[in-house]
């Protein structure tokens, strides 16, 4: 049984030289068979496992990870959390997710540092003004609290912003007061700890190399640690979804491209909201350490190298400097990329697949960190019961049937 984390535990351990802390999750070796195997220990895979146990009592579960837990996009993103999407199914799953974030630290007994500091999406063209006003009206009908604010309000919330840039003037913003950020690693670690505590096995450095089936039904997987049997399989591998789907014998409407981010040297607090500027593909927040966390645009071509093209960073930084002139003297400290899984309508896929017993959760693209709790909540139901009100609209057959959940109209980028 794990330690319970609390102020009391910190004090107790301080008195005994921190000898009483235990591993947050067990190091596990694969068993011969599980009820459910989840491929991919990113946030979405771990949250799926967690809610399988918590909501449906299914705990004979393994989460298999080829690298280290949270080392994919979950550990590479800029952690923006918001739920003011345009379409109804999106608003439902993203708002469920955002609301779960509100109490996630308590639920997991793990501080995920959810910071609802407010997210503003700048409108810098007339087209964007109209688009965001439309989203604000849609959100009002969906019960998602968000509003369109004036340039003056933008300046009050974010004094370092320059409103009247000649190329990118700020004409207003879509503002979600209870949006914000969370600590990405902590989200993965917190779910992993809770899963392990329910008796689930989280097996790192275990790559799934094949999917076994009999008579059109999944029966297990081949891995670098041997064959493992299962009743049900959940594929939750983001950028590698196409590769895994091929092993399971079906195709996906997904392309994998690099998305990049960078952070500056730490400075004193200058900005206590999250600002997104979708026209120029740039978005920024300040971390608790003081670094400016900056995300850029996605590359235009398929890539698996977790390395993007320099000119995207240059474009993002050039535009951000115009909107935030005080950034121009900052040195950038780190720069990295992740491989994001893009669908045609920029909405995710949470679905059954042509292989009976095999489910897929992918297509979160550039914006799935915010969705981790909600996606896990719905995906667990989908695996346990065969459908979920939260995920039904996101099924794979929507492309054939023309039921798109078109979020690409709402924002060029979706973070």
């Amino acid at each position, binding site marked *: 049984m794990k330690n319970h984390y609390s102020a009391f535990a910190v004090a107790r351990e301080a008195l005994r030289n921190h000898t009483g802390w235990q591993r947050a999750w067990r190091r596990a070796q694969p068993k011969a068979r599980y009820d459910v195997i989840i491929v991919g220990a990113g946030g979405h895979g771990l949250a799926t496992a967690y809610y399988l146990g918590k909501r449906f009592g299914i705990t004979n579960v393994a989460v298999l990870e080829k690298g280290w837990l949270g080392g994919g996009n979950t550990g590479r993103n800029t952690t923006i959390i918001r739920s003011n999407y345009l379409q109804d199914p999106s608003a439902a799953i993203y708002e469920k997710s955002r609301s779960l974030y509100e109490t996630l630290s308590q639920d997991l007994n793990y501080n995920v540092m959810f910071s609802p500091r407010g997210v503003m999406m700048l409108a810098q063209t007339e087209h964007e003004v109209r688009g965001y006003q439309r989203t604000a009206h849609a959100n009002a009908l969906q019960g998602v609290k968000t509003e369109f604010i004036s340039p003056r309000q933008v300046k009050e919330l974010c004094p370092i912003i320059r409103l009247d840039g000649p190329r990118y003037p700020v004409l207003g913003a879509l503002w979600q007061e209870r949006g914000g950020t969370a600590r990405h690693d902590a989200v993965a670690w917190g779910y992993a700890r809770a899963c392990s505590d329910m008796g689930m096995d989280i097996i790192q450095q275990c790559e799934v190399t094949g999917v076994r089936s009999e008579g059109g039904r999944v029966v297990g997987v081949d891995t670098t640690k041997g064959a493992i049997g299962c009743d049900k399989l959940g594929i939750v591998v983001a950028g*590698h979804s*196409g*590769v895994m789907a091929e092993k399971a014998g079906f*195709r*996906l*409407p*997904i*392309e*994998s491209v690099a998305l990049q981010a960078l952070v500056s040297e730490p400075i004193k607090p200058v900005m206590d909201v999250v600002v997104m500027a979708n026209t120029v593909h740039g978005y920024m927040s300040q971390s608790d350490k003081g670094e400016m966390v900056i995300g850029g645009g996605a590359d*235009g*071509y*398929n*890539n*698996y*190298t977790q*390395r993007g*093209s*320099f*000119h995207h960073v240059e474009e993002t930084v050039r535009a951000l400097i115009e909107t935030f002139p005080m950034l121009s003297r900052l040195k950038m400290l780190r720069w990295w990329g992740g491989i994001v899984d893009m*669908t*045609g309508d920029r909405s995710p896929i949470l679905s059954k697949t042509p292989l009976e017993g095999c489910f897929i959760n992918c297509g979160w693209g550039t914006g799935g960190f915010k969705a981790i709790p909600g996606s896990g909540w719905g995906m667990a139901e989908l695996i346990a019961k065969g459908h979920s009100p939260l995920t039904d609209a996101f099924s794979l057959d929507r*492309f*054939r049937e023309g039921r798109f959940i078109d979020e690409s109209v709402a924002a060029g980028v979706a973070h």
Partner: protein
Amino acid sequence: MLILTCPYCGVAAEETELAPGGEAHLTRFGPGSDDAEFESYLFYRENPKGVHFERWRHANGCGKWFHAARCTNTLEVFGTYPAQTTEPPAALREAISAKRPGWSWRSFSEET
């Protein structure tokens, strides 16, 4: 930085000079096609971790569309070739086979 040599004007163009155009050699489906054909034509794209064929445009140069063969796992470029063809030239396929034995992409492979 990705650098592709334009097969028309011969310029070794870096990425900012080029515009990506997605998967190469698509079969276009029109009126009379069934749902599955439209679905795959409109939304399903090859997404290999390895050898890939793409369309590119020398947008800030001679303006011409062309094809490129690339490895998405290493960013190595195998070669480029003109747009007016429905399949990669034999010499390029052989060059890829030398570097990636056993490769395959849609109906093309080391053998064909």
